[in-house]
C-alpha cells in the first residue's frame, strides 16, 4: 500500500512539471477528496472496525477465542486446504499457461475461456456442482459411499471447492507474461542442446518467477478466505469441517461478536500480510528488471 502511494506521489510531481497537464486546484482537491474519502470509508474503516471489535473485550477474550478448540480446528483446516490447493494450482496453472502460451492446438480458445470459469461462476454454484457430483444423491454418490469415501461434508470436498475457486489465479497471471515473452528463448535453449526439463528449469522458470510468486500469493489469499463454495460443501460441522471464514460466520450468528471478530482479525491480518508480501515482490521484481535495463 505504502509503495503505491509513494509511487503515485512521484508520478504526480513529474506530471505537474508540465503546465499543460496541470489541473486547477479545485479539481485536484475534489478528485483527491473523493478518492481518499472513498478509500477511507469503504476500505480502511471496515479494517479498523475488525480489529477494534476484536479487542473490545480485552486481550484475554481475544486470546480465548483463538485458542478455543473449534477455532484451532478451523485454522488447521484452512491451512490444510490452502496447503493442498495452492501447490495443485501452482502445477496446473503453470502447465495450463505453458500450453496456452507456447503451443497451438485445437480448443485453445475454449481452454482459455474455461480457465476463467471459476471467476465468472458464483462460488455457491461451484459448491453445488460438487454436491451434485459427489454428494449422497449425486452421480458418484452411491459408488463413493460403497467404498466408504466421504467427499461432501468432509475435508476432500472443502479442498476440491477451494481448488476450483482458486484455479485461475496462477494461470491468469502467467499467460500474458509467457505470451509476451514468446518461445524464442526456449527455442534457443533447445537448439543449444538443452532437454525439455533443462529448458524449463534454466530458462522458462527464471523468466516467470515473479509473476508466478505473485499468482501464488493471490491464490493463497483466496484459498484461505473462500467462503461461498466451501460453505456449500462443508456442512458446518464444528471442529471437523469448519474453515476460518465459516467459523467466523457461526460465531457471529451466535452473537459471540468479540470471538467472531477475533478470528476475523486473523483473516484480516492474513490479507494485510498478503498485500505486504505482494508489494514487496512487486518492488523486488521491478528493481530486478530496472537493474537489468528496464525491460
Amino acid at each position, binding site marked *: 500500500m505504502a509503495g503505491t502511494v509513494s509511487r503515485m506521489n512521484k508520478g504526480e510531481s513529474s506530471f505537474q512539471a508540465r503546465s499543460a497537464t496541470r489541473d486547477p486546484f479545485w479539481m485536484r482537491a475534489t478528485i483527491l477528496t473523493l478518492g481518499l474519502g472513498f478509500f477511507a470509508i469503504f476500505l480502511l474503516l471496515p479494517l479498523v472496525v475488525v480489529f477494534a471489535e476484536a479487542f473490545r473485550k480485552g486481550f484475554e477474550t481475544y486470546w480465548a477465542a483463538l485458542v478455543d478448540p473449534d477455532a484451532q480446528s478451523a485454522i488447521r483446516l484452512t491451512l490444510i486446504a490452502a496447503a493442498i490447493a495452492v501447490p495443485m494450482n501452482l502445477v496446473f496453472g503453470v502447465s495450463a499457461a505453458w500450453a496456452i502460451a507456447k503451443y497451438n492446438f485445437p480448443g485453445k480458445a475454449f481452454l482459455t475461456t474455461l480457465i476463467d470459469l471459476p471467476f465468472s461462476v458464483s462460488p455457491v454454484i461451484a459448491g453445488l456442482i460438487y454436491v451434485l457430483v459427489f454428494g449422497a444423491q449425486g452421480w458418484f454418490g452411491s459408488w463413493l459411499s460403497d467404498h466408504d469415501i466421504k467427499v461432501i461434508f468432509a475435508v476432500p470436498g472443502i479442498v476440491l471447492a477451494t481448488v476450483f475457486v482458486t484455479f485461475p489465479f496462477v494461470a491468469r497471471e502467467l499467460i500474458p507474461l509467457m505470451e509476451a515473452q514468446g518461445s*524464442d*528463448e526456449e*527455442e*534457443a*535453449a*533447445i*537448439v*543449444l*542442446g*538443452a*532437454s525439455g526439463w*533443462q529448458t524449463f528449469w*534454466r*530458462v522458462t522458470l*527464471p*523468466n516467470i518467477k515473479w509473476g508466478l510468486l505473485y499468482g501464488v500469493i493471490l491464490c493463497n489469499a483466496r484459498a484461505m478466505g473462500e467462503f461461498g463454495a466451501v460453505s456449500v460443501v462443508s456442512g458446518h460441522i464444528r471442529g471437523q469441517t469448519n474453515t476460518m471464514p465459516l467459523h467466523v460466520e457461526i460465531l457471529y450468528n451466535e452473537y459471540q461478536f468479540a470471538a467472531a471478530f477475533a478470528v476475523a482479525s486473523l483473516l484480516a491480518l492474513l490479507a494485510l500480510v498478503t498485500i505486504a508480501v505482494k508489494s514487496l515482490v512487486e518492488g523486488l521484481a521491478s528493481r530486478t528488471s530496472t*537493474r*537489468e*535495463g*528496464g*525491460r
Partner: protein
Amino acid sequence: MSIRVEGITKHFGQFAALSDVTLDFDKGKLVALLGPSGCGKTTLLRIIAGLETADHGRVLFDEEDATERHVRERQVGFVFQHYALFRHMSVFENVAFGLRVKPRKERPGEAEIRRRVMKLLDLVQLAWVADRSPLQLSGGQRQRIALARALAVEPQVLLLDEPFGALDAKVRKELRSWLRQLHDELHVTSIFVTHDQEEALELADEVVLMNRGRIEQIGSPTEVYTAPASAFVYGFLGSSNQLFGEVKDGYLDTLGARVALPTRETVPQRAAAFVRPHDLHIERGEGHGVPATVRRILTLGALARIELSAVQDSRAFEVELPLRDLSALALTQGETVRLVPTAMRLFPIEEAASP
C-alpha cells in the same frame, strides 16, 4: 558440413509456405536466402534447424538423412532475429549455456568452460561485457553475443535468421563486414535469411532467391544481379522501371509510343520490359521513347534521381544519372521529355510482376 534439402513442402493451414524446394548448400560456404517477407525463407531455415517439421521432403547433413533427428542432436548454431538471449543470465552464462546443459560425461569442467567462453567473447570482441546482463547491451552487441553463444557448441552449421534485421543501418553495415571476416576465419557452413538484397549481394558466396515458397534463382551475387532469371528477380534486386506492351519489328509498343529494343532478343509478343534507372536516358526533341513529364529532381551525393510520369497514363518512372549530366541537361520541372532505354530485359507478360 554440406546440407541438402530435398522436395521440402510445408503448409501452414491453407498457406503454402514452401512447395517442393530442393537445394544444396556446399561445405564452408556462406549462402543467403533472399526474398520478400512470406516467401518461405525463414521456414526453410527453421526446417533445416529442426525447429519446424516439413510436411514432405528430407533434410540431409553430409548426405545422411537428418529429417528425423531432433533439433538437439543436429549440432546447428541458430541465431535469432531478436537475439533470444537469456535475459536473466549474464553474458558469460549465456555463452556458457550450451556447454552447461551437455550430458554429464561430455560436459567440460568449470575451468574449461571459462576458457572456451572467454575465447569466444574475445572472438566477438566483447570480453569486457562478460559480467553484464544482455539487457544492458546495444542491439549490435546482443547479436554478437548471440553468435558467440551459437558457436559455443561448435556447430557444424550456422543458421542466421535475419541476423541484422532489427539493427539500424550503420550498425548493420559494420556487422555485415565483420560477419564476413568471421566466416572467412571459421569456415563453418552458414546460411542466413534476409529480405535486404544489398546485404545478400554484399555478404554471401551464393544467393538463393525465393518467392512464394519456390526458388526463383540460385547463383553468385554477380550472376543474379546481372542475369536475373525472372521478372521477379529483376524487380527484387534493385529498383527498376517497367514497360508493358507488344513487341513488333524490334520495337516495343507501349503507352502510345514506340521504344526501340536495344538487343535483338527473340521474345514473346506481349512482354514486360524491365529497365534499371541508370539505363533510362532522358532525351529531347523528335524520336522514339516514352513521353514523360518531369515531376521531381532529387540530388543525392554524386547521383541525381529524376522522378517522371508518363504523359499517357501518369505511370511513374525513375531515372538516375550523374550530377554532371544533370547540369548539362538543364531539366526543369513540368517539362516533357522522351525516355529512351539503353539496356533492358524482356520477360513474357504472364510471369511479369503485377503491372
